[in-house]
Each structure stands twice: as C-alpha cells, then as structure tokens.
C-alpha cells in the first residue's frame, strides 16, 4: 500500500508562495495560500470493504488588492509559472471589482504552534490497519443489540494536511502548519415494531490511538434502537432538552449571526445588541481556535492571523462578534483570527472555530430531572431550509424521546420543533457538563441544553 506525501517531486508549498510574492507589483498587496492534503477513507458493510479511497490534492489561491479592489484566482496543482499567471489573472479581475476600504492584508507574524496537532505516529499507520478498524467498527455496530443488524454506512477516514501562506504584508518568508485528523463514523439501522430507525455517532482524534471505535459503535446502535416504536406527539408548547448534537446544530445556525460580516451587511438579528442580554444567564458562548483536540484547531486562520479565544456571549450578555481582517478594518477593530477558508478555491470569509456553549458542572441526568416532563431531541433535520441566522427562524424536523418523571421515556418521531434564535437563547434554563464537539462547519460544540419552552409540532 502506498501513501506518499502529495507534494513529492513537486515544488514545495513555500516555494510556490514565493513565486507569487515575486510577481507582486509596486502598490499591490498580494497574498498566496497554498494547501496540500492526503486522505484515506474506508467504508465497510456486511463484513466486507465497500469502498476504499486514497486521495492527494494540492492547490494555490492568490489574492491581489489594487487600489482597494480585490481579485482572486486559484489553480489545482500549479507549476511555478502558473502561480505567476494566477497573480496576473487576479490583478485583471480586480479591475472589475469596486474599491472597498475593507480590502486589506493584515501583517502576518509568527503564530505559536499547537502541541499535538500533527501526530507523527499516524503517518506510519498502514492501510491494512485502517481497513481492519472499519471492519471492526461495522462488526461491533451490528452485534451489540438484537434490533441492530445492519448499517446505513460505517467508515474510517483520515487526513494529513499542510497549509503555507505568504503575503506582501510580512517580512519575507512564509508561515505554515501541518495537521493530522482521523475519524470513525457509524449510522446504524434498528428494525422492529414495523419501523426502521437510524442512529448516528462520530469520533474524532488526531491519530488512530485516540479513537474509541467501540464507543462510536455503541452510541450509534443505542441511538437507533431507542427510537423504535416512535409515535408522532400532539402539537404543544413544551420544555425541550437538546442533546449535544442537536444543541450544536442550533449553534451552527446562530453562528451566522455572530459574524461581523453579517452584522456589517445587515444580516444579523444581533447587530445592535452588543452589551445587552441576548440570552439567559446560563448562556456563555466562546470561540477558541486553539483548543487542543477540537476539530477546528489551527495556529493561524485563513489569512495568517494567529487564532485565539473570543468570548462572544457571557452570562447571556452579547460581548462582540467574530472578525476577519476585512470586517475588522471596516469596524476599526482587530481580527479575532476567524478568517475562514473552505480551501484554496475560496476568498477568506468569517467562520467560527470551535464555537461552543460553555458547560456547567451538573451532569445531563440532573438536567433531565430538572426538566421533569419535556421532549428530548437527539437529531434535527432540515436545518439548511428551516432555520435562518438572518430572520432568526428556527423550525426543523426532530426525532427523540419523551422525558417523563425526569428520565428518558417513549420514543417520538416525525415531529418539528420551532422557535426563534433569540427566544431559544432567552429560554435556556440550564446547560449540562457534557460538552462535545462535532464536525459541523469547521467544528462546533455544546453540552446537553434544557430550553424552557419551544413549539413541538405533531398531530
């Protein structure tokens, strides 16, 4: 089995960045973002390998700012001459854009490295071992419970990636980092009582040694099995308990309203509320791009700015927004290190990094006891169409369980939960201690959350 680094035999990433710098003309701000990664993915089903994929990719994106006008060009796996051409194409594009004082490159300094971001041991794991992990996950997922005999999908995946950047707003050279990621995921199908239900789980680590495959299998199987026999509830206004995955899904919508770009362009319902209460005192929201072991952790953001910790909501009071260099320049503020970049193809936007709802010290069971009678939501669906960070609507499909007498009870399906972002934040009665991170967006985290009231739709 072969897995060579993507760059072998090719110009190194800093070298490609240097070509772009050399092509910059006087008065121009030029930035180069170069990226390479290798992935392996194994899917298993019915005791067999369903598919096995290897990939390698690299690319360069170049931003050119001339007279406050922005042009951008990218190419997959460019030769040095093509990188020079990217600068010319981006410069040409800039002529058609309009000047905006927000178009600035920030000065890039060295960012502190993050311990453990690159797991050396992961680089030596053989493909055979990865295949074995996927097969073991599938075996465990289908053998733990009698109702769960098959999976919708089970997989193991890993990635090794490297980013290098250079900019005319730095004193020569380039900055770079490398990281490893590996993950296991399972969606189990439970059958019984004339129904089929699915349950999902996911584990993420820097290297294989950190993955708990058995826990992923158990959780996916349990979450599927406990939904069997679910009924549609009667429509009512009720307390709702969001499990960490459902709460993180809620945060994925809210995060759009915490972007300074949304604020500046009239797309955030939070725009005018800094210094005011936007949630109950149980709500503290923190973004931390340096959190060890979390999904979005990196030493610097998509435009080279060191990542950091930003408290956005503290005890319910809105403290500020997430900034990249563009929004910071427009607001006269500093970048919070939240320039998000899907890949070398994208102009940096604003994105959260490990945004999470801070946990309390009470466990989830205590939270359920406090809820008494409620609806417990374990999965939400239709977020991209039923929820909006602009209008604040939050109306989504849900599956879960009744909470009766402070404990989980009968399963529920085909229901909706609805409210608004601000009403949910205001109605959060308590949060639990079980903070978990999920790979939604770049990475979001939440503990179990008790919301005092939402509308549950059913019959």
């Amino acid at each position, binding site marked *: *089995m*072969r897995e060579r680094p993507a760059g072998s*035999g090719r110009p190194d990433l800093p070298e490609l960045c240097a070509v772009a710098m050399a092509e910059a003309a006087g008065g121009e701000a030029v930035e180069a973002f170069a990226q390479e990664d290798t992935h392996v993915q194994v899917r298993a*089903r019915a005791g*067999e390998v369903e*598919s*096995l*994929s*290897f*990939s*390698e*990719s*690299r690319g360069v994106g170049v931003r050119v700012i001339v007279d406050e006008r*922005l042009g*951008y*060009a*990218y*190419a*997959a*796996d460019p030769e040095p001459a093509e990188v020079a051409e990217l600068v010319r194409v981006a410069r040409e*594009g*800039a002529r*058609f*854009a*309009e000047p*905006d004082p927000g178009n600035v490159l920030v000065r890039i300094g060295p960012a502190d490295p993050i311990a453990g971001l690159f797991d050396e041991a992961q680089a030596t794991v053989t*493909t055979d071992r990865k295949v074995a992990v996927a097969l073991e996950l599938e075996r465990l997922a289908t053998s733990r419970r009698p109702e769960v005999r*098959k999976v*919708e999908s089970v997989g193991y995946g890993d990635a090794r990636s490297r980013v290098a950047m250079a900019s005319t707003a730095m004193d020569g050279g380039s900055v770079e980092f490398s990281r490893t990621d590996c993950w296991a995921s399972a969606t189990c199908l439970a059958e019984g009582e004339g*129904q*089929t*239900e*699915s349950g999902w789980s996911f584990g993420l680590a820097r290297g294989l040694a950190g993955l708990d495959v058995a826990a992923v299998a158990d959780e996916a199987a349990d979450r599927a099995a406990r939904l069997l026999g679910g009924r549609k509830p009667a*429509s009512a206004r009720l307390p709702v308990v969001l499990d960490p995955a459902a709460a993180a899904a809620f945060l994925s919508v809210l995060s759009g309203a915490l972007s300074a770009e949304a604020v500046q*362009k*009239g797309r955030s319902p939070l725009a005018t509320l800094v210094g005011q209460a936007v949630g109950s005192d149980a709500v503290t929201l923190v973004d931390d791009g340096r959190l060890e072991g979390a999904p979005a952790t990196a030493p610097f953001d998509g435009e080279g700015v060191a990542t950091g910790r930003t408290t956005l909501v503290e005890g319910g009071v809105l403290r500020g927004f997430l900034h990249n260099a563009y929004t910071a320049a427009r607001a006269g503020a500093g970048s919070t290190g939240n320039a998000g970049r899907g890949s070398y193809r994208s*102009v940096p936007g604003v994105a959260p990094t490990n945004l999470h709802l801070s946990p309390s010290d009470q466990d989830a069971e205590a939270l359920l006891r406090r809820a008494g009678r409620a609806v417990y939501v374990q999965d939400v*669906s*239709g977020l*991209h*169409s*039923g929820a*909006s960070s*602009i*209008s604040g609507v*939050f*109306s*989504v*499909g849900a*599956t879960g369980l009744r909470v009766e007498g402070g404990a989980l009870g009968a399963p529920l*399906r*085909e229901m*909706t*939960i*609805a409210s*608004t972002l601000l009403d949910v934040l205001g109605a959060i009665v308590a949060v639990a201690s079980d903070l978990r991170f999920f790979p939604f967006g770049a990475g979001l985290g939440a503990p179990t959350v008790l919301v005092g009231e939402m*509308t*549950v*739709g059913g*019959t």
Partner: protein
Amino acid sequence: MVLEPELVQRVLRVALGTGGRLAEVFAEDRTTTSLRLDDGRVEEVVAGRDRGAGVRVFHGDTQAYAHTNRMDEAALVRAAEAAASAAGTRTGSVRVVDLAGASSTGDVPDPITHPVPEPADGVARDRKVAWLREADDAARAVAPTVRQVAVAYFDTRQRVLIADSDGSWVEEDRPRIRLFVSVVAGRDGVMQTGSHGPASMGGTELFQRHPPAATAERAARQAVTMLDGIPAPAAEMAVVIGPGGGGVLFHEACGHGLEADHIQKDASVFAGRLGDRLASPLVNGVDDGTVPGAWGSLAVDDEGAPTHRTVLFEEGVLVSYLYDRLRAEHDGVPTTGNGRRQSHAHLPIPRMTNSYILAGDADPEGVIADTPRGLYARTLGGGQVNPANGDFVFGVAEGYLIEDGRITSPVRGANLIGNGPAILAAIDAVATDFETWDGVCGKEGQGVPVGAGSPTIRIARMTVGGTDA
C-alpha cells in the same frame, strides 16, 4: 483532450494488475468564473481552474478508488497502483486494454458538446458586472423595505473524460451558468429573506428565459411579503404546494429512497416495492437527465453512461429505481445513467438529475378554491430525508394560510414534515401549471446540480411545524 489515450491505456493496465474485473479513469478539467455583488458593491471577481483524475478498480462488490489533481503520468500511475493494491493482492494476468478504436487507428470519439448560442465563458467581464447591477437595481426597486441584496453569478466549463478497461471512451464538455439573488427585507426590527436562483446547462440564453431583473424581483417580493407574515401554525392540515415546489417534495420524499445504493443496503422504505401502487394514481413521476438546457441534465453520467428519461411512478405504481454502474451490475439491470460525482475527488453514487412530477388535469386556482383550510407553500426551501424510513422535512420559504378557499395571510417559519410513501399516497390534486426549480443536492458530502419540477399539487393532510400551537 483531457488526457491522451495512450496514457489512459497504460494507467488502466496498471489498475488491473492485481486482478480487478474492471478499471475506470475519470479525468476532468474545470474552469470557473464567479462574481459577487454584495452591499451594493462588486466585491469579488474570482477565476479558477481545477483538474484531476481518479482511477477506480472493481473487485467483486468492492470499489477501490484513488485520485489526484496531478495530471502527469507518474501521479496517475501511482493512483492506479494504489487502487489496484487496495482492490486485490492476487497477481492477475496482464490484460490488454483497448479503448474505443484507439488501438487500431489512434483515434477516439469526439467529445460530446452542448452547443449554445453564446457560451458564458467567452463573455467580457463588464457584461457580467452589468448583470449583477441589473439584479441589484431591480431588487432594490421592489420596495423601500429591501435592506440588503447579494447577487452571485458563476459560469463554469467542466470537461470530463471517462474511459474504462472494457474499451469505453467518452468525453463531454459541460457548460453551466447560474445567477442567484438573496434579498433581506426589514421593518420594525423584523428581518425576512427571499432568494431565487435559476440555472442552466448552457450559456447566456438563460437570461432570455430568466432576466436578472426578474430573478431579483421574485427574490425581493418574497422577502418583502414575508414581513407581513404571522407565525405559522403547528398542526396537521391540507397543504397546497405551488408549481415547482412539488418537485422538491418529490426529490426528498421519494427520489432519494429510489436511489439503488439505499435499496441494495435494504436501507430504503421503497426496497422490494417495485410494481406496488405506493402513490396516488394522480402521480406520474420521472427522472430525466436529457431535458435540453436543464440544470440537472448531462449527455452522459459521470461513469460515461448516456442519461435517460426514467419513469419512476406511473399512475402511482413504482416502476424503477435509479442506478449507477455498480448497483446496476449487482441487480443485473442496465444502468439508468444516474451515476454522478461532484468531482474527480469523489466516487460516483446514484443521484437524481431532473426529477419531476408531471402535469395533471386540475386547474391550479380550483385546487385552492377547493381547500377550506390549509397552507399554501408557494416556494419551498431545500429539504432533508432519512431514506431508511422515508421521514422527511423541508422549510417553506414563502407560505400563506388558505382560509375558505382563498389565499390569505403570509406565514413565517413554516416547516413541513412527513413520510415519503404516506405523502405520495395523500396527493389528491395535480394541476396543469408545471414549473421547474434549480438547486444543489447534497449526499454523502457531494453536491451536484439537480433540477426539480412539478405543477401545483395538494396533499390532503400533513404536519405543518410552526410556532403557533
């Protein structure tokens, strides 16, 4: 030509070196231009080029895949070796790979093209800027409550080559274009949104059918209208879905469940139900990748198979599933040409192209007049389905109450939830006013362009999830 035939032959030979039964190369070269206007300014002008190739080896029901965005021989051979080593360890006999005529004449078939009056990639940037401006001006002219307008334009040309060790060689040059307008309207601290984004497999003729101003006006009217919305009810009721939207429902409620990967995993509510009357007899549904100019159309799918018009439901009876090559071979049937992938970096899986509920006989206004109480969903947002049990949900982007057979107050925050087969069976009116809707469908992390279409339809009873219980 994306890759030379001799190189492809060498790569396929390496890929079969460990005894795989079939090897395939998918290569692409894609150029994209995109422009974005936001906050009244043309703020981004982006030009990009992506290319890459993937080598797939079939070994029984296992697929091994390796891809790279390097197009040199060394990288492609290494990808072939990786796929081969994953597919098997047996040393196979060396197999000669003949590509459609290439061995004897050195020629391969010409690429399939989509001739368009004016390809978008040749249009000067200042005209593209003018389309953005036209849309921005038109949206802002709709009402003083229009607060913010974003206009995203892109055109792309994807040149693909699909060749396999059975000798198939297909190239297709796919031009695509889209203009998407998003509008925020605001009043008294309330913000509402509207959006519209017609798209085409084609060139600038898109703007004759859908002028940028008309697209912008539709998006702006939706946002402005919703400012007057009352909270949506949470209850079961009759739901009338406007033209086009029923196609989105069809896509979620049953299209995904008919994709043969879900069927073969026995992870679909539609598995084992061919020939059964699952939908109302009013429902005739197709998936059609051959509609000229439609956003989800392709001459060949991403495995090189010609696309089809596949009848899925005929008078309510389930007629066919949607196949890619692997699943078709497994079932011993011909592929329906639905093997699609987002790019060379993805394995093909069964996907829809343009999925339509065909027009019926009912008068659309009569359908509303005949509904004493219900919800009128003029425009749907996207949706999501759990294919294993058919439960689906989607958001209503523009909705109204129906009271005494008339469309009355707009409602905010409505969400529809139901179960695929149950909802298909509950369709009790199909009108004549067929329209299409263009979108991007996500499955297993892969986004592909899809079309949907329908006339006005009515579902006798389904759950509306709003905040007003």
